[in-house]
């Protein structure tokens, strides 16, 4: 197989996805645009958290902490370079290139944080990771609120609006591709094995700590991406966007969609985002109805909408049922 064909195969979903996103970009009303982007960011968050909570069977509840790291890194870069243009490029293109660099930098910073948090805590088994990540989330928030460089509690305002449907769409697409390809590979199967039985996985030669740290770092990086996209959508970067509540929101999406199901996470992220928007008319009852929806879903399907399966696992059965 030639190099170009391999490249084509690995990038094919993006080659199809980008033109579609391009066509929709700017065509929708601005409110629909924003809702879709928020949904896309939630997809990135839910799918990336699923790599740790669903595939690897660890329980991280500090995803918003990594979002914050990515968001502040990206925000600082775009603010600092607001008046700078890359020589030889039109303003618009230059801005987008800088935004891309800022996003990648945010991902790298978040990944480093993931490594820092994951290395000591992932050696342990059980609930320790939940406690450590929860603590990390709060530490990050407190540090931001007390650091002048990061704008303290008011945060960084006046960010340029750089996120658009293409960026968010590509981000979501890359995240989903990453998760699907990971789980279909030997490395991904090692993660699943850790979830199923850590002792047996270790005995079969799987370096459980190493794999857990890697999964955690990857997951953190994509949380950083989501953070960067979010603050350049709402044009404001404050610690209030990255509290414990935000982390729980993402955990809810993962649990609701089914731990270990990529399509489940996507569906749950979309359903919850749209439900929250749809309930806007209910005003003060909005959160009440939101919680009732969650309770009903958890009572009727405790394993999540999809369990550990993917949407296409049901397709043959459906086809059979239709034909019979």
């Amino acid at each position, binding site marked *: 197989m030639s190099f170009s064909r391999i490249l084509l*195969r690995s990038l094919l979903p993006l080659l199809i996805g980008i033109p579609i996103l391009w066509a929709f970009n700017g065509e929708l009303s601005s409110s629909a645009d924003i809702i879709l982007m928020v949904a896309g960011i939630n997809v990135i968050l839910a799918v990336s958290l699923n790599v740790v909570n669903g595939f690897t069977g660890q329980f991280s509840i500090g995803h918003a902490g990594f979002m914050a790291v990515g968001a502040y890194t990206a925000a600082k870069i775009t603010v600092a370079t607001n008046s700078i243009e890359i020589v030889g490029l039109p303003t618009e293109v230059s801005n987008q290139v800088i935004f891309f660099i800022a996003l990648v930098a945010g991902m790298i910073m978040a990944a480093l944080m993931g490594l820092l948090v994951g290395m000591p805590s992932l050696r342990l088994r059980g609930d320790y990771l939940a406690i450590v990540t929860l603590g990390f989330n709060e530490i990050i928030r407190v540090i931001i609120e007390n650091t002048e460089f990061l704008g303290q509690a008011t945060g960084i305002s006046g960010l340029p609006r750089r996120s658009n449907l293409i960026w968010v769409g590509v981000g979501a697409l890359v995240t989903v591709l990453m998760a699907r390809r990971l789980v279909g590979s030997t490395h991904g*199967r090692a993660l699943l094995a850790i979830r*199923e039985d850590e*002792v047996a996985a270790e*005995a079969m030669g799987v370096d459980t700590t190493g794999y857990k740290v890697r999964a955690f770092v990857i997951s953190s990086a994509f949380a950083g991406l989501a953070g960067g996209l979010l603050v350049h959508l709402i044009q404001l970067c404050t610690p209030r966007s990255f509290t414990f509540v935000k982390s729980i929101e993402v955990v809810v999406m993962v649990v609701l969609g089914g731990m270990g199901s990529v399509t489940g996470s996507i569906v749950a992220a979309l359903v919850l985002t749209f439900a929250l928007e749809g309930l806007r008319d209910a005003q003060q009852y909005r959160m009440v109805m939101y919680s009732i929806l969650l309770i009903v879903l958890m009572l009727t399907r405790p394993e999540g909408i999809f369990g550990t399966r993917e949407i296409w696992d049901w397709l043959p059965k459906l086809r059979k049922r239709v034909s019979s």
Partner: protein
Amino acid sequence: MSAAAENAPKPESESTTRGWGDTCLDVKKVTMQFGGLKALSEFDLSLEPGELVGLIGPNGAGKTTAFNAITGVYAPTFGDVTVCGHRVNGQRPHQICGHGIARTFQNIRLFKELTALDNVRVACHAGRKSGFLASFLRTRGFLEDEARITKRALDYLGVMGLARVRDERAKNLPYGEQRRLEIARALATGPKILCLDEPAAGMNASEKVALMELIRKIRDDFKLAILVIEHDMRLVMGISERLVVLDHGVTIARGKPEQVRKDPKVIEAYLGDSYLEEKHIAIPAKSSESVLDAAPAPEEPPVKEVQP
């Protein structure tokens, strides 16, 4: 099938030297202590390539503890474990596995939600080159690796007669097939030593005989040293060249099956349970058990005082 079990499989054990000397597993004076309880004391064992050794003993004799100490689930309190020339004390189980030792578990520990094929594929590490990034980009190296691993896994499933159920989830397999799948998974790590922890537990008599035949066949086909835990003595006698008998963590006999069968200590361990109980609890003198035994005695008198 059972008739074939009597044929002596001697010739294979002649091929001794394979680069790491003539012993592939060397356990020297390994002691496992949990608090005051000595679960295993001064356990010695050496395995030569191609040898099939049975580790037997009554319930609670410390057989599984010995396995756990060898494969790194526990770090031995004292003593040395050498696998294929590598001293492995204190190493993590996956590192020890990398030196060429694989095991199964007494209470089956399969990856329940994964398919039979994936269970085996998890264990196929040998010769894997592609890293994480390659699996995202689906590079050529990655695809080649995947194809090779899948083929290897299918081969092992075939050997254990499981090719038919490759796409079944492990939890949905019948009990006997789950046991065989565990062996297939252990083989896929490419071991030189295979440790089987009560592979026949929960099987009926004819299944057990068939399994023991299969174990011998694996040994011959893959040229492995095999260590089998079994508490059914008759069963393991037919296939193993040597036996080691444990009781309360102490090695009470070792040698050829015929010798061991006649050993009075072994007969005692298996038949005279109550007699032996008294005798052996005295050995770990400071154990928590002996304290418990002593405690209930003086508690009788206070009952009378309740009456008035």
